[in-house]
């Protein structure tokens, strides 16, 4: 280790190397985060220059707010189905694509393409697909389930959102699973083939246990994206019809910036942080336990 001479030298080096990043990081992330906790304990309305400290009243209001819980349950339903489907499809694609396929590169790039494009554009594209193209197909081929726009139906709109997100993220998570599959030592698979293990036995006995780290990463990423989804939600359904797709991020946004109840909005946002932190940390903790030592 290289040692530094003198106290001033130390300070100088800190300011040169870590100073700018630390300053910006603290003023953009940490200070707003802490200030946000304080804001959630006040009755600030976004305009008034004076506001007072009201303790935990905002949190009480949030817990009694039926629309907040409705939005929270919708988000849970959306996140659960999205994470499950994305990971199953992504692993399936990765498994097939690493098993010796012609045109592997084209397929990989093609499945990945939706990830290049922002949520707003994807949402607008699928808005057209659901409200025009699918309805046209449904009517001309007489499919009753496609003959109306899913986006106008409160029972179907959330599933439209799930479909778009699965389509959007499965290519990305596929790359993560491919990276994991490629790293499994060939000797292990060969040894299993010599021992007469079938395809299914190899998958269950060797591949899946060794893929736990990849699943940790991809479930972590898809959980986080699921809870934070906003762009696609806004462009595809804008929370409608009848609030049937107003997920938690959009709910917080509307509460704060449209209804101007900043204190309550911030209390909801802080609650969202606690849920996301708790779920992702538990997930990482339990999946680390499943990991196999090599």
């Amino acid at each position, binding site marked *: 280790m290289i040692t*530094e001479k003198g106290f001033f030298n130390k300070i100088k080096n800190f300011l040169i190397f870590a100073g700018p990043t630390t300053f910006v990081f603290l003023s953009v992330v940490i200070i707003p985060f802490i200030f946000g906790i304080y804001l959630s304990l006040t009755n600030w309305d976004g305009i008034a220059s004076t506001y007072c400290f009201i303790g935990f009243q905002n949190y009480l209001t949030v817990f009694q707010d039926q629309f907040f819980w409705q939005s929270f349950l919708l988000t849970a339903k959306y996140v659960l189905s999205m994470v499950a489907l994305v990971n199953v499809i992504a692993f399936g694609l990765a498994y097939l694509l690493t098993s010796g396929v012609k045109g592997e590169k084209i397929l990989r790039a093609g499945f990945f393409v939706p990830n290049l494009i922002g949520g707003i554009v994807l949402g607008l594209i699928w808005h057209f697909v659901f409200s025009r193209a699918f309805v046209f197909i449904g009517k001309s081929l007489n499919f009753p389930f496609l003959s109306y726009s899913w986006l106008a139906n409160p029972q179907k709109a959330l599933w439209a959102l799930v479909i778009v997100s699965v389509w959007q993220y499965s290519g990305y998570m596929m790359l993560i699973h491919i990276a994991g599959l490629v790293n499994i030592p060939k000797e292990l698979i060969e040894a299993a083939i010599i021992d007469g293990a079938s395809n299914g036995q190899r998958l269950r006995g060797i591949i899946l246990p060794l893929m736990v780290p990849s699943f940790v990463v991809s479930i972590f990423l898809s959980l986080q994206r699921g809870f934070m989804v906003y762009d696609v939600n806004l462009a595809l359904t804008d929370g409608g019809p009848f609030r049937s797709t107003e997920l938690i991020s959009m709910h917080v946004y509307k509460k704060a910036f449209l209804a101007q109840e900043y204190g309550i909005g911030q209390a909801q946002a802080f609650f969202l942080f606690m849920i996301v932190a708790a779920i992702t940390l538990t997930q990482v903790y339990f999946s680390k336990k499943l990991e196999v030592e090599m």
Partner: protein
Amino acid sequence: MEFEAKKGNRKNILHLGKHIFLFLLLLIYLFPFYLVVVNSLKERKDIISNPLGLSGGAKFGNFLEAFTKMNYLEGFLNSLVITALSVLIIAFFSSMTAYYFLRFKGKINKILFFMMITSMLIPFQSIMIPLVRIYGSTFKILDNKWILIFMYLGFGASLSVFVYHGFMKSIAVELEEAAFVDGCTRIQTFFKIVFPLLKPTTSTLIVLNVLWIWNDFLLPSLVLISKANRTLPLSTFYFHGTYTSDYGLLMAGLLLTILPVIAFFLLMQKHIISGIMQGAIK
């Protein structure tokens, strides 16, 4: 013998089936993009009567109209400036910070590094209200590209510092010590010896950050208020709000918005795919 042949046949059929399945699935995945391309070449009435095919021949008028009506050039240039500068600034400052955190193991460094890693768990939504309050109501410095770039450094630094830190552990200190003996200062050592070695990590991070910042919507929608400052996702969104049912025009606008990213992907395909795969292992 006969048994072997049968087994071979079954294998071939499975192999073929796998290919057919994958390519069919690819067509389904790309179907929405096909619709955008086809309908950007049509007029509204042709789209309503049949949104799937190209019946009346291709017309390119929509593109010119969308280009002017959505202020495409302005949005494109704003996005370009913001993305390019943010990405370079993030790479520059986070690599230096990561280097410092790795080579100097003081208490403050440990605390800062820990804070950066744990801050990655904070959803942006739980910061956005105080962020707007501090930079909007108190300092009144929103609606400014430079503030947005400043914020991107703040939000992007954690991941980049973390990834650089992880990669730098594999670089031998001896190289740097040799540079010291030759009379290099600490900064010269970093830029002449360490930074060039970080190239693979830098390209991975640039790819990840370009895709994030170029496509980001929520943060710029809060920070950039005036029309002249809008990035491409913002102008696309407001354009869509104004011409909701003029489908041909909208599809042309969407296609124009997608093209730069597709071009970036085709140019950088190798880096993007391997960058994400490496980013995942970290």
